[in-house]
């Protein structure tokens, strides 16, 4: 970051960074037990970097929580561990597999792992007694998210009520809670996909290598390119072929599609996104395709 500007204006990236850091500090100061939801994807990595900066040279004063679907990309879990080691934060893993085993959530064979994350996450938040959970959601991702506050109130059931949102004025956030309630906090609400990539480039930070182009064995399903995996057996008529691809989002590998791409550096990715005609979720997220309000409905249930 350039410290001094002749006209005392911050660049947009610096202004967004300043706003996010303000939010991190505010939550750390006002909430008893915050936790950062960390998937190892690009947005949550940017969040980790921002949290690192907010409290530097002290350590990040809260743990991080990953909801492991059991179907995560190994490359992503590896990056997760690097970040946790480097920053010396405590990692809590909430496993969907274990939640299924102990009956916290029910795997009926039809519900996606992504959806089973909801119950697993809520259970982990309750068990840890967390009163604030940071998430890397951005308002540009999806139309229901565009309505979400930076401080998003959740009731005792972890539910979001879009009609009862608190007005958010200036930078004065209201973190009042009743027993059993918690707040979801979205410090990078105002960032766009391009901002996230610009920031990753500027800060030169480590992200999982599946974001860069690589050879992968994939097959077509519902207009998406999915990875060949034991968790995702091909159906009749689906043929596996090797392609040069990369991912725009990371998540449950049975639902997260990749795109054909040769972008192998951050500038190449930025160039590709700048001219992309399809949103990152529209291109690659099977979970948003169930209905027009898929995201809203999941969020009402407690999805992050």
């Amino acid at each position, binding site marked *: *970051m350039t*410290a*001094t500007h002749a*006209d*005392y*204006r*911050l*660049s*947009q990236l*610096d*202004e*967004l*960074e*300043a*706003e996010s*850091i*303000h939010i991190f*500090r*505010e939550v750390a*100061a006002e909430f008893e037990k915050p936790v950062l939801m960390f998937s190892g994807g690009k947005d949550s990595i940017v969040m980790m970097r921002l949290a*690192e*900066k*907010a409290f*530097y*040279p*002290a*350590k990040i004063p809260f743990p991080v929580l990953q909801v492991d679907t059991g179907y995560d990309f190994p490359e992503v879990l590896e990056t997760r561990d690097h970040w946790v080691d480097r920053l010396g934060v405590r990692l809590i893993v909430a496993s969907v597999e274990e939640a299924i085993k102990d009956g916290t959530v029910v795997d009926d064979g039809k519900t996606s792992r992504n959806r089973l994350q909801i119950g697993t996450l809520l259970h982990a938040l309750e068990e840890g007694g967390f009163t604030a959970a940071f998430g890397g959601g951005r*308002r*540009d991702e999806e*139309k*229901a*998210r*565009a*309505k979400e506050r930076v401080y998003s109130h959740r009731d005792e059931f972890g539910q979001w009520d*879009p*009609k009862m*949102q*608190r*007005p*958010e*004025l*200036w*930078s*004065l956030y*209201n973190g*009042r809670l*009743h027993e059993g309630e918690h707040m979801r906090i979205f410090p990078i*609400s*105002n960032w*766009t996909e*391009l*901002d996230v990539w610009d920031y990753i480039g500027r800060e030169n930070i480590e992200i999982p290598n599946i974001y860069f182009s690589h050879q992968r064995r994939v097959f077509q399903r519902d207009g998406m390119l999915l990875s060949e995996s034991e968790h995702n057996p091909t159906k009749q008529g689906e043929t596996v072929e090797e392609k040069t691809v990369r991912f725009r989002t990371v998540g449950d590998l049975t639902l997260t599609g990749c795109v054909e791409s040769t972008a192998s550096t951050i500038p190449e990715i930025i160039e590709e996104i700048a001219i992309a*005609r*399809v*949103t990152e979720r*529209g*291109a690659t997220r099977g979970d948003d395709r169930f209905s*027009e309000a898929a995201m*809203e*409905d999941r969020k009402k249930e407690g999805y992050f």
Partner: protein
Amino acid sequence: MDLLRFATAGSVDDGKSTLIGRLLLDSKSIFEDQLEAVESTSKSRGYDYTDLALLTDGLRSEREQGITIDVAYRYFATPARKFIIADTPGHVQYTRNMVTGASTADLGLVLVDARQGLTEQSRRHAVILSLLRVPHLVLAVNKMDLVDYDESIYNKIHEEFTAFATKLSIPDLEIIPISALKGDNVVNRSEHMDWYKGPSLMHHLEHVHVASDRDLVDARFPVQYVIRPKSDAHHDYRGYGGMVAGGVLKPGDDVLVLPSGMTSKIAGIDLHEKEITEAYPPMSVTVRLEDDVDVSRGDMICRPANAPKPSQDIDAMICWMTTEPLKPRQKLAIKHTTRVGRALVKDIQYRLDVNTLHRDQETKEIGVNEIARVQLRTTVPLLCDPYSKNRTTGSFILIDEATGVTVGAGMINSGN
């Protein structure tokens, strides 16, 4: 590249969604999958046009009712600037939502329908933007295509609005004739209105000068978080994290810490891993002081000769945001910068009619979406400035202690 935050206003029929849709479309910020979804929904509803409002109405209940319930934030960028739009609904709960959107806006965009001219609604929106001290205002005279791009119609609205604006505090006003539907003067200059010599809306948004809008004179640093690593490498490190709310801070500056009144000097300013030579709004930095004075969250670092006056008796304008009315003697929680306390409503001086600017001194109960001038007594002294001077140290929120909900937005006139 810098960032411009703007809030839109205007009733639904003034073409706000169409305009936002066009700004997003023409800046290539709408993606094919989003457009396809909107097209197919429009078709399934039997519309013979693509309803761009469906792009912005993100909630199930909004789409069901065909109205915008809540503020939404949208993003687009041009090669010159990045923009955040606070898309505030024109319908129900207008004041509360407009106050929310305008609280962070650099610019307010009010739409009027050229056929209707100025309405009560347009005046009301201008009043609220002025009350919230949004430094730049654009009045977009829309639907010029429906009045044959008639210059005299534009001139009449121009004249009327300019006269009205003199009663308000609007430092910068631009009035632009447009057609959001046809694209006249939105991104490109219109071929139909060669009589108009001003900029297109997009050109104005890209170039409006906002650098001087923040107070760079009065140093204000509300302490947000004390950073004490207590690690071997940083054993004696003690820094105060916060966002600069006013002025320019430099190492070596003499400072005064409020409310304790202790003085010291700035030993250094850290921006994360780096030491920097100056900090100004809205930077989030960490300030270190030369002396080991007692400083904690809620304190304010400023200059000895230029400090806000700590006060517990606050005179303020407030916008009431909940259906349960505000009454004298009511007690509420208050959050001002990084301080929290309780506030007692000592007096409701008047209710401001945002349509006529009439001050109604009879009413002693303030309803939802109403604006009033009140006197508060607070449990903790607020380290405040008039809102007209500083939007950060001059603003506060009121919280209902029973429900935890934000019920009021306040703008300080003065503290005593």
